[in-house]
């Protein structure tokens, strides 16, 4: 960088490569395990890929583990529905709430704003039982609504959109009003298309957040047909004294990582933007 020191450059790359190996290692082992038969995993585990890859994944997707009554295919679909539901729900209700708070003057505006802010301080983890009870009273246990709705309030998304709306020049709104557009047209014709990059960044972050939900689905799903993949994997591991079906568990684990990891790799720019902006 500043001066030329070959040994330092070498050290730099060496550290980075070993760091990467450290990060990749557990996933590599998992991948290798997902290509072996159960016997090969339990008796003489080799760190080279085996020959049961297609077989394990096909069985996982179509049949599932013998310990859980749902196929990994179903559970992936459930995870996807939950992740997309949370993502789209959060974005939609945060967009319109931020729009109201920025572009309208109305009674209780700041009161609502603080109310949304408070959700930041109340993660599921601190209100497990009463929230479960609300879901039970609303009869949304073991349902997609139950997996999605309790998680779609979002202070961070609302703040992010508010922040963005504040940077939109006032003149644009004036111009639109002179052009004859009312609040609803202005939102759909001008503001929404202009928010595309913010929406994309949030989409990436929230999709990962939604896909990776664990505690809430664990609480409210007892019906296996509503299991998300992460809950399913935990159930596959809980075999008591029996033998866990490691080859299926490992294949499922790889499948559980693929969607969010792909999103990060292919939408890296939006991901980084989302990460740095939602933490403000």
């Amino acid at each position, binding site marked *: 960088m500043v001066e030329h020191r070959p040994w330092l450059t070498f050290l730099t790359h060496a550290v980075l490569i070993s760091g990467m190996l450290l990060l990749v290692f557990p996933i590599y082992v998992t991948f290798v395990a997902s290509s072996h038969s159960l016997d090969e995993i339990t008796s003489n585990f080799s760190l080279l890929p085996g020959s049961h890859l297609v077989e394990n994944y096909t069985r996982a997707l179509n049949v599932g583990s013998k310990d859980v009554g749902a196929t990994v295919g179903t559970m992936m679909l459930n995870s996807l529905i939950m992740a997309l539901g949370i993502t789209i729900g959060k974005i939609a209700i945060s967009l319109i709430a931020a729009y109201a708070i920025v572009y309208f003057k109305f009674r209780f505006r700041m009161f609502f704003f603080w109310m949304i802010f408070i959700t930041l301080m109340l993660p599921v983890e601190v209100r497990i039982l009463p929230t479960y009870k609300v879901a039970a009273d609303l009869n949304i246990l073991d349902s997609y609504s139950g997996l999605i709705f309790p998680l779609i309030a979002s202070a961070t998304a609302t703040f992010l959109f508010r922040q963005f709306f504040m940077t939109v*020049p006032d*003149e*644009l709104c*004036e*111009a*639109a*009003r*002179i*052009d*004859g*557009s009312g609040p609803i*047209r202005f939102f759909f*014709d*001008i503001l929404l*298309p*202009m928010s*595309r990059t913010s929406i994309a960044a949030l989409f990436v972050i929230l999709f990962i957040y939604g896909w990776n939900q664990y505690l809430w689905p664990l609480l409210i799903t007892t019906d296996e047909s509503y299991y998300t993949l992460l809950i399913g994997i935990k159930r596959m591991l809980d075999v008591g004294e029996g033998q866990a079906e490691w080859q299926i568990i490992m294949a499922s684990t790889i499948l559980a990582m693929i969607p969010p990891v792909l999103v990060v790799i292919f939408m890296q720019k939006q991901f980084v933007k989302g990460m740095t902006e939602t933490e403000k």
Partner: protein
Amino acid sequence: MVNDLEPADRDIAMVFQNYALYPHMSVYKNMAYGLKIRRMPKDEIEKRVRNAAKILEITEFLDRKPRQLSGGQRQRVAMGRCIVREPKVFLFDEPLSNLDAKLRVQMRLEIRRLQEDLKVTSIFVTHDQVEAMTLGDRLIVMDNGYAAQVGSPLEIYERPATRFVAGFIGSPGMNFLPVPLSADGQWAELPGENRLPLQNGGIPSHGGQEVILGIRPEHCDLAGEQDGMMHLDVDHVEILGADTLVYGHFGEDKTRLTVRLPAMHHFEKNTILPLIVSSKNVHIFDKKSEKRIEK
């Protein structure tokens, strides 16, 4: 009252200082948006947009996004958005202040030409007095939210109603000298023992009082050694080519004065210049109210 109408119902169109073009829409869509909302038939919209684009010479940019345009081009699109609406009134809110100096002059001429062609009442807000003088048929000089004077550019230049207006129009700004009047109001006592006769019988009403004498830099002329009313001690000279600006002071209390002399002159610092000013070109303002004093 128009205040009670929604902006859209006021039949006005506005060009903003930052143009306020919709960044995600093409030039065509920017111009068509207001018409689309008013549910104008498609072919009529197309006709109007193409026509406006032709007048403004932006036809080739119709498919571009605003960020692909230069400042001057954006300015035209902003005007195009107004033209297509065929409103009763155009509002221009400092539309040229974001352009560089050369483009500003060019756009100024174009706006003038356009306004003459379209014959639409236009209100043009500006801080730039050259724009005000060249574009306006009537000027309203605003001082702190109040209209200080309304009139044609020439009226405002020749008979500014207040000291504020006088200082605003003209470049460099008018010189203001606090001077006492003679007891009969016929003369102004200039610093340095000289007297300036006032025209039209003077201002007897303010005889013996102190007033503010306004002299535009361009109304001072070089005089012969004996005729000089003010002997300016030169501090600093700016040669602009066509004229020369001379900054200096005179009199015991070193009253500052700026003078614009035609043609090129070279003066050394501390040269003493004898100057005269014609009494028909001086302005007198009340010291307290700062309003113009006419007899």
